[in-house]
């Protein structure tokens, strides 16, 4: 499968990515293999947000860590601007990290509790801009904090003094420090309160408009994915079962699992929501073994071949 002739110049091109974990048998020898991710391919275009949705255990976080080589894939290629990341040496990959950044789910765990906010945000400069003078670095950090909506004087404070929403802003400030072209955002709003989620999503959107960053937006929040993403990939048991423009996917879901997923999202409107619950038409779960390769059913709309037994 090769999703899309439209993707002639992708920023990131993932092909046949798999991540397997060997399961040890009880006597310690080689046992079977756990297939966390199996044969996943997708492209991300410059300036685009690709949503990666799926439920717990679907492999979405594994993909996020595989494309950033934090947990390299067992098979397949990840090409970033034409460079095969798996072929880079450790040193070359570290240099590449100036271009590829990551925002994590839990802003409480992602900050080093014993590092001041200023040092934390300045770290990318220390690692990748050796020529930068201390004063210049401080100005940059203050500018970044201001850009994500924080008081620049917060630089001297420590993580425990901030709320979840502020911590996520700090993580975002660090991620954009070197003006990367690609950010993997792994459930960046899942740990935040509802009234804070919109703030962070708007910030991500503004940064994309300003800096042209591409996002891989990993989330289980189907409403937010529809809002933020141009295209969406639906993961199920480690495989992509549907990949399409967001509008096409939400309005005309083709795969039974996508339909099941979308039909389960509560609607914040009592009349519609009661009707949805009353219909009780929650589709039965499909069989994961009945999934074949992707087929293009409409331009840019790819669906896993469903083999009915």
């Amino acid at each position, binding site marked *: 499968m090769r999703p899309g002739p439209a993707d002639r110049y992708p920023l990131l091109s993932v092909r046949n990515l798999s991540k397997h974990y060997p399961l040890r048998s009880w006597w310690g020898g080689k046992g079977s293999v756990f297939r966390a991710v199996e044969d996943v391919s997708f492209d991300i275009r410059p300036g685009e947000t690709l949503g990666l949705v799926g439920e717990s255990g679907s492999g979405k976080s594994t993909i996020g860590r595989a494309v*950033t080589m*934090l947990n390299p894939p067992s098979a397949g290629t990840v090409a970033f601007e034409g460079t095969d990341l798996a072929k880079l040496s450790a*040193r070359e990959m*570290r*240099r*590449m*990290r*100036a271009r590829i*950044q*990551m925002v*994590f789910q*839990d802003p409480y*765990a*992602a*900050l*080093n*509790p*014993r*590092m001041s906010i200023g040092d934390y945000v300045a*770290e*990318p400069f220390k*690692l*990748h801009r050796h020529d930068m003078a201390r004063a210049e670095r401080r100005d940059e950090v203050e500018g970044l904090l*201001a850009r994500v*909506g*924080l*008081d*620049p*004087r*917060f630089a001297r*404070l*420590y993580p*425990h*003094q*901030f*709320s979840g*929403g*502020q911590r996520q802003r700090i*993580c975002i400030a*660090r991620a954009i420090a070197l003006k990367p072209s690609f950010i993997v955002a792994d459930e960046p709003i899942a740990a935040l309160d509802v009234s804070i989620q919109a*703030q962070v999503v708007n*910030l991500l959107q503004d940064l994309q408009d300003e800096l042209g960053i591409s996002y891989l937006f990993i989330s289980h929040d189907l409403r937010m994915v529809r809002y933020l993403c141009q295209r969406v990939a639906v993961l199920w048991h480690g495989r992509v079962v549907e990949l399409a423009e967001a509008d096409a996917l939400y309005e005309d879901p083709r795969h039974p699992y996508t339909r099941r997923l979308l039909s389960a999202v509560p609607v914040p409107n009592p009349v519609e929501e009661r009707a949805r619950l009353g219909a009780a038409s929650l589709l039965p779960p499909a069989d994961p073994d009945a999934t074949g390769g992707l087929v293009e059913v409409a331009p840019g709309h790819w669906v896993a071949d469903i083999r009915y037994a």
Partner: protein
Amino acid sequence: MSNIGITQPGVIESGTGLPPATSLRAEPGPIRAFWARLTARRTAMVGLVIVVAMILMAVFADWVAPYDPIATDWGAIRSPPSWAHPFGTDEVGHDVLSRIVFGARASLGAGLTSVALAVALGLPFGLIAGYAGGIVDLLIMRLTDALLAIPFLILAIALAAFLGPSLTNAMVAIGLSATSTFVRLTRAQVQAVAAEEFVEAARAVGNPPWRIAIRHILPNIVPAILVQATLTIAAAIIAEASLSFLGLGQQPPEPSWGSMLNVAKNFLEQAPWMAIWPGASIFLAVLAFNLLGDGLRDALDPRQRT
């Protein structure tokens, strides 16, 4: 919107705008917060005061002690406590109080020096074992396990006997015996911290492994090491006393609490004060370091408190 309001406990919040209208709240940094928590613990403060007092006593022994600790007074042999000799004198007429004061140098010095040696050796090896993993980890840990299989005091005695009787050798022996504890603790701490998301975040911005170990992991394991070091000092003081008691530590006529006990055991009936004061000093020092260590543990790890 540009207000800075105060949100959840210990949290400063601003709107999305800037700069703020009001000044920053004076929130204590981690060190000040730690100090506030420590001083709030009465038993820890008792321990700290005793430790500081004993260290001052050892440092300024020349001014504190009423007599020369190795000066003999043949006119006052095994004399009970009196105004002239508040703690009494020993079998050759040494002033016991003066020997206690100078003995603190040997006992506390041995405790601090040996633990410093154990940390200096144990920390890097534990850091390497925990972070590098693989064959390096395997080698370091098997060696550590082998050392840990031998009881601490037995190992210290054996090493001291091998090195020859002197206070310096006793310190080295105790330090080497305590090293494996720190290797193991450091490794376990490193592995726990390395699994945290901020370490992955550090990799994600391009930190090389050595920098992750030094800048991200090390600062987060210092508290646990500090607590263990404080508690180990107490054990090292006992070990020094034991070695001196066996004649493997401080050599006569220089005083140490353990060697004082060694001599005193022969005169328990006739001159009990010879044993009581060094015994009480060891007890007090060990108690103080333990109280301080427990207090540090509570104050350094707010997550463990409920």
